[in-house]
């Protein structure tokens, strides 16, 4: 459904030192720099798949989503979405996509959601009967039927986000871009939105791209991820493979039968969790054998288990290393 090849986006930005003299100078001489937001990124997304696009702030995730939805033009590279070139913005293409941005509202602030949905029905030329059926379906699974006639600005953030999701999906798009859809929401609302996205994926089978800073979103919704670092593509594959590819560390868990004096342990071994009856150490993969020996020697009778690092921690570590 979505094929991206060597996509690149550069922005020219104006750089100005502080102060009035610099401002006056900038009136005549502009110091501009070219910022590369996305560098030769390639991937594809199949029908019914949710691809997680992950990266730190400024990694280029939103820029990619905006290029794939036709909002901004790439500097180079090619994109094919359902056979369309997005930035030609053909009506048939626009009718089959949806974009949800957690940080930007599409609904009219002063109007109730019901009015906005009617306008969207007209914009997307959805048959009134089908529109009503889809609306009933979305309202019931998101549990916001009672809020549909309340002005958007009077709704809570969670309710507003649910209305945004309904607005974006009423025309049953075949391609859905979700840019941080759970940002700022409480845990219950995040869970509800995740369940909804999974339910929608199962019933409509669209190709979806999800960007999120919440690893739980990615872990719950995406089997495959693309990782970006400073606009560069670094990984495309199954989420569980991220750990093997990027983590040089292992986790040693030690179950304790009785309290232990931690000062007896080698201080160079990194203790990352202390639950009283269980300790967790992070060690380099090549050091696992001799650290295990050391721990067994210093904590007689302890149960040791060696495991992989948590995916979220690996990704966070990766972003920190490259920052």
């Amino acid at each position, binding site marked *: 459904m979505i094929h991206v090849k060597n996509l690149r986006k550069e922005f020219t930005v104006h750089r100005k030192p502080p102060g009035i003299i610099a401002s006056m100078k900038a009136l005549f001489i502009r110091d501009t720099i070219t910022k590369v937001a996305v560098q030769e990124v390639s991937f594809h997304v199949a029908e019914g798949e949710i691809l997680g696009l992950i990266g730190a702030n400024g990694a280029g995730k939103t820029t990619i989503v*905006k290029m794939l939805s036709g909002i901004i033009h790439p500097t180079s590279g090619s994109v094919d979405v359902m056979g369309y070139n997005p930035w030609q913005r053909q009506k048939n293409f626009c009718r089959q996509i949806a974009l949800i941005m957690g940080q930007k509202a599409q609904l009219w602030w*002063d109007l109730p959601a019901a009015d906005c949905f009617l306008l969207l029905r007209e914009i*997307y030329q959805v048959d009134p009967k089908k529109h009503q059926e889809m609306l009933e379906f979305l309202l019931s699974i998101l549990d916001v039927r009672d809020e549909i006639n309340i002005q958007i600005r009077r709704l809570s953030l969670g309710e507003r986000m649910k209305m945004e999701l309904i607005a974006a999906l009423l025309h049953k798009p075949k391609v859905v871009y979700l840019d941080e859809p759970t940002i700022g929401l409480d845990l219950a609302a995040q869970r509800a939105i995740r369940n909804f996205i999974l339910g929608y994926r199962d019933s409509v089978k669209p190709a979806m791209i999800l960007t999120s800073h919440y690893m739980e979103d990615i872990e719950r919704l995406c089997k495959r991820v693309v990782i970006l670092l400073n606009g560069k593509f670094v990984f495309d594959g199954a989420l569980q493979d991220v750990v093997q590819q990027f983590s040089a560390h292992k986790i040693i868990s030690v179950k304790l039968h009785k309290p232990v004096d931690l000062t007896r342990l080698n201080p160079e071994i990194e203790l990352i969790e202390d639950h009283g009856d269980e300790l967790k150490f992070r060690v380099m993969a090549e050091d696992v054998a001799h650290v295990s020996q050391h721990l067994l020697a210093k904590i007689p009778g302890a149960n040791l288990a060696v495991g992989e690092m948590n995916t979220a921690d690996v990704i966070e570590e990766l972003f920190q290393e490259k920052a």
Partner: protein
Amino acid sequence: MGRYSKLYLYFLRFSFSRAMEFRLDFFFRIVMDTVYYAVHIIFFGVIYGHTSMVGGWNFDQVLIFMCGFFLVDALHMTVHANNLWALPEYVNKGHLDYYLIRPVSSLFFLSHRDFAANSFVNLIIAASMLIWAILRYPGEFSPLQIMVFLGLLLNGAYLYWLIHMCFVIPVFWTHSAHGFQMLFYSLKQFAERPDPIFQGLMRRTLTTILPFLLIASYPARILFEGLNTTILIHSGLVSLGLTIFLLWFWNKALRSYSSASS
């Protein structure tokens, strides 16, 4: 076309329900525009206190021309102005994003989504003033002349939007707060003067590249000079040319749209 009419009906409905919530703004705009009309009529009243003709037009003719311009201006204020004023902010803050992914013309959507219901009363006032000016005119006009005059005024409102839009679009590159709208409002004053007073290069410019004189002055000439096909053809061709230019300019601008980081 039917679809766009339906969409516009939704915009009207939403805009009216919003406008009623802000009563002070609603009444302020009526007062503001009424003062604007009065100032212009007084201005010409003062001039005609010293002379009987300006550019070959007497006061009765200028009054019809001015009231025609008020009608065009009120139409612009009601239908387009709010949208064009908001556009620079949309571009600079990246709010254009959702408008660009809809299966409707982004130019139509962004130019018409906000109907200024609080200017609607001014539209009625301006229309009433025009009827009054025509009725008090000492000569007579044929029904066809009146119809062509009104048709050309509608074309004038369309030209007004086209020119205004051309002055807003540079905001895609300049990222300034208003685009070149201040320049537009300075130049717009040419549309508030009878076209016979302009000569030479300035006249050619104001009837072609920046066709401010075609907004209200050319339509008024249909009433005073009779049905003039040159005026009709000229107005039609300029509107067509400017439409083609605007579509090209808009697409060029959208290519430069950089949105804003989230």
